[in-house]
């Protein structure tokens, strides 16, 4: 899952960090250099078997399929189910299943040597830079996948069975390259049972929210905690406040690196609002230095009422949350004069599945993704991980936990108004710079104007960098 927990495991980093780069080259370092041989450019799509409606990519049943899964918050049980679907249709195929956490360390040498797996779930803190993979032609164009018939849907193309954010987030340089499978919903999380008991209700307007915070504070609880060690989390609140106030154009301008995008009036108001929470003492004391586990545990222990997070929160806290704790999402409140309604939020498609361009069994990889996108495959994913997928209607009739149910309800109520931003994935060097500024803002160490200036400086620097591939949104 794409939680940005930068738990960098100890990378084998020699004194000068030099060896690590060659170690990443792994096996090929023995043969010569870390970047390996060039290898021939073959963009063969389609297998050697005949292409039929049941087998649209012409998978040769005799070809083996290699699947590499990020074994993180979602585990790898769901992948075993998807593999069984594949095995059912191609009983001769030998499927290799690998569940790992250090994607980059293990996959980088394979990509460089031109022998990547057929399906890769590129996720987690150690994921490979996806925009670089896309820009350097390492990924298969998924147009044919999205145009293929969805399984069991009477000839409806897959494209029409997915949440629009899946198509939007797949695009790199005008071509769909990445299948972001899981939907992640961001908002403020609270314990429904506690709120019922105290008679509290998540507020819709900023004014009401401040009043609620005052009441919670009066009850001896911090109104809000956040995972301050990773400012990404509180940034979700900031972005949501700004975009819901100014409309999706605020996010479009930021993603397109437009001049003064971060100095938008809505962004300033959102930054002021965040400062207000801090200055009025509504933040849990010391939360700026807590990591996600520490802060979420404090929240589970009712030391704080709200915590910002994505929809993986419930699953992540499963072992820590006390019995009777009803993890529930609330949308962020609206600032005065908001353009978007209350019950929408940032919905992101994450867990990036790719078929490498140099995969030996490209057709098999595409077919595997097609099976993942069947209602059966998607429902099993949600059943096992409590996370919704990009497949529309795949959660119908499932018995859901309170957190998953409230997150799915928010996706539905937001509908067309749900929004997303991409700059952090598109321009990875810019991301930590903005996060650093958000951290300073949330700690109350800089003003709203200073925040806007710092974030804008990071954006301008990215815009001026000739080596960065620029992308725009409508």
């Amino acid at each position: 899952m794409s939680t940005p927990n930068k738990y960098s495991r100890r990378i084998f980093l020699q004194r000068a960090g030099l060896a690590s780069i060659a170690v990443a080259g792994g096996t090929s370092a023995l043969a010569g250099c870390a970047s390996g041989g060039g290898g021939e450019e073959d963009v063969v799509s389609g297998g050697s078997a005949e292409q039929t409606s049941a087998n649209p990519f012409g998978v040769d049943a005799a070809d083996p399929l290699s699947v590499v899964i990020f074994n993180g918050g979602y585990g790898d049980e769901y992948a075993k189910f998807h593999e069984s679907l594949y095995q059912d249709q191609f009983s001769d195929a030998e499927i290799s299943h690998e569940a790992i956490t250090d994607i980059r360390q293990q996959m980088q040498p394979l990509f460089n040597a031109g022998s990547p797996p057929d399906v890769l779930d590129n996720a987690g803190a150690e994921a490979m830079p996806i925009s670089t993979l896309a820009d350097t032609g390492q990924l298969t164009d998924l147009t044919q996948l999205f145009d293929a018939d969805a399984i069991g849907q009477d000839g409806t193309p897959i494209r029409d069975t997915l949440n629009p954010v899946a198509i939007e987030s797949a695009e790199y340089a005008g071509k769909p390259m990445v299948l972001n499978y899981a939907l992640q919903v961001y908002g403020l999380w609270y314990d429904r049972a506690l709120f019922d008991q105290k008679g509290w209700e998540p507020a819709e307007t900023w004014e009401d929210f401040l009043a609620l915070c005052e009441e919670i504070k009066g009850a001896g609880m911090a109104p809000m905690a956040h995972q301050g060690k990773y400012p990404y989390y509180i940034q979700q609140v900031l972005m949501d406040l700004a975009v819901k106030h100014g409309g999706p154009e605020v996010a479009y301008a930021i993603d397109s690196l437009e001049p003064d995008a971060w100095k938008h009036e809505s962004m300033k108001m959102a930054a002021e609002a965040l400062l207000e929470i801090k200055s009025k003492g509504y933040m849990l004391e010391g939360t700026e230095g807590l990591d996600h586990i520490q802060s979420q545990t404090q929240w589970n222990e009712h030391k704080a009422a709200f915590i910002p997070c994505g929809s993986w929160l419930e699953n992540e806290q499963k072992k820590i949350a006390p019995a009777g704790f009803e993890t529930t999402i609330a949308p962020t409140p609206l600032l005065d004069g908001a353009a978007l309604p209350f019950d929408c939020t940032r919905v992101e498609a994450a867990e990036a599945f790719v078929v490498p361009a140099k995969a030996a069994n490209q057709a098999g990889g595409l077919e595997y993704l097609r099976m993942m996108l069947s209602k059966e495959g998607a429902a099993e994913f949600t059943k096992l991980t409590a996370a919704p997928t990009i497949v529309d209607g795949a959660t119908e009739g499932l018995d859901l936990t309170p957190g998953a149910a409230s997150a799915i309800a928010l996706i539905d109520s937001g509908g067309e108004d749900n929004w997303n931003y991409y700059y952090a994935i598109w321009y990875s060097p810019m991301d930590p710079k903005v996060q650093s500024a958000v951290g300073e803002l949330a700690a109350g160490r800089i003003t709203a104007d200073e925040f806007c200036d710092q974030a804008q400086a990071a954006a301008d620097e990215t815009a001026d960098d000739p080596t960065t591939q620029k992308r725009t949104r409508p």
Partner: protein
Amino acid sequence: MQHGRYPFIVGFLVLPLTVYAIFVISPFAQAFHYSLTDWTGVAPEFGYVGMTNFENLMSDSLFLTALRNNAVLLVGLPIVTVLLSLFFAFLLNVGGSSGSAGVKGIRGNGFYKLAFFLPQVLSVPVIAVIWSVIMDPTPSGLANSVLGWLGLGSAGWLSDPALALLCVLWVLVWGSVGFYLVLFNAAMSAIPRDIFEAALIDGAGRFTTFVKVTMPLLWDTIQTSWVYLAILALDVYALVAVMTAGPGGPDNSTQVISLQIAQNGFQFGRAGYASAMGVVLFFITLVIAVVMLRITRRERIEY
């Protein structure tokens, strides 16, 4: 006997030298090569860009911040660690009450050595996790509880940009003192007792003995330690990556070069640029090691 001697030596050396060449020399050489390219690290293709990477480094504000923080550690770590471990080693060896038996160490000498050395057997991430728990910034955190009990309020520790780098430095010192204490202790035990006793008879106090007798006799050891600690101060990757906000934060106050190398090389898809940073770090390390060994060179005392 002369006959067949070289094949014999070569026979022993060929394996270690091959391993060394593959895993040390070749990566270094490759890093120099890639520092001149725009290699992304994820695709086999790359182009040559000359010195562009190095030129960009000079205007990269994050890299310069990292350089500055490394410089702080470079000065702070060896000074504090060497002084502390010398002091403790001195106490363990000659700190005991000077009775009729002459010079001896304090009681429980062995226990202290063990206690100080203990951090050395823990891996760096474990140390980092232990200390981040101790330096929990909430009022109920361990260190803050002690401060509160003393009536000193609470501190932000790693979440305070003014304190964060000092916290990292402290953990580095804590983790290193034990090893150097044992090292200095061993070196001190090698100094003949009668030298200390002669100094005592001549009326030298403990401080004078330390400065005039112990330090000069330990100079070789101190010099080596200094270089080791300097090299450690230029790395600190694991500690910063696990312990600090971001990592490298807050407000980039704990940003270090090794972290920049890892981020650029692996997260940003800029392996060429990261290699250039590695090359710069290589030369900084080299120069510092050479300079330190030169300026601290003294006449060796034989005993």
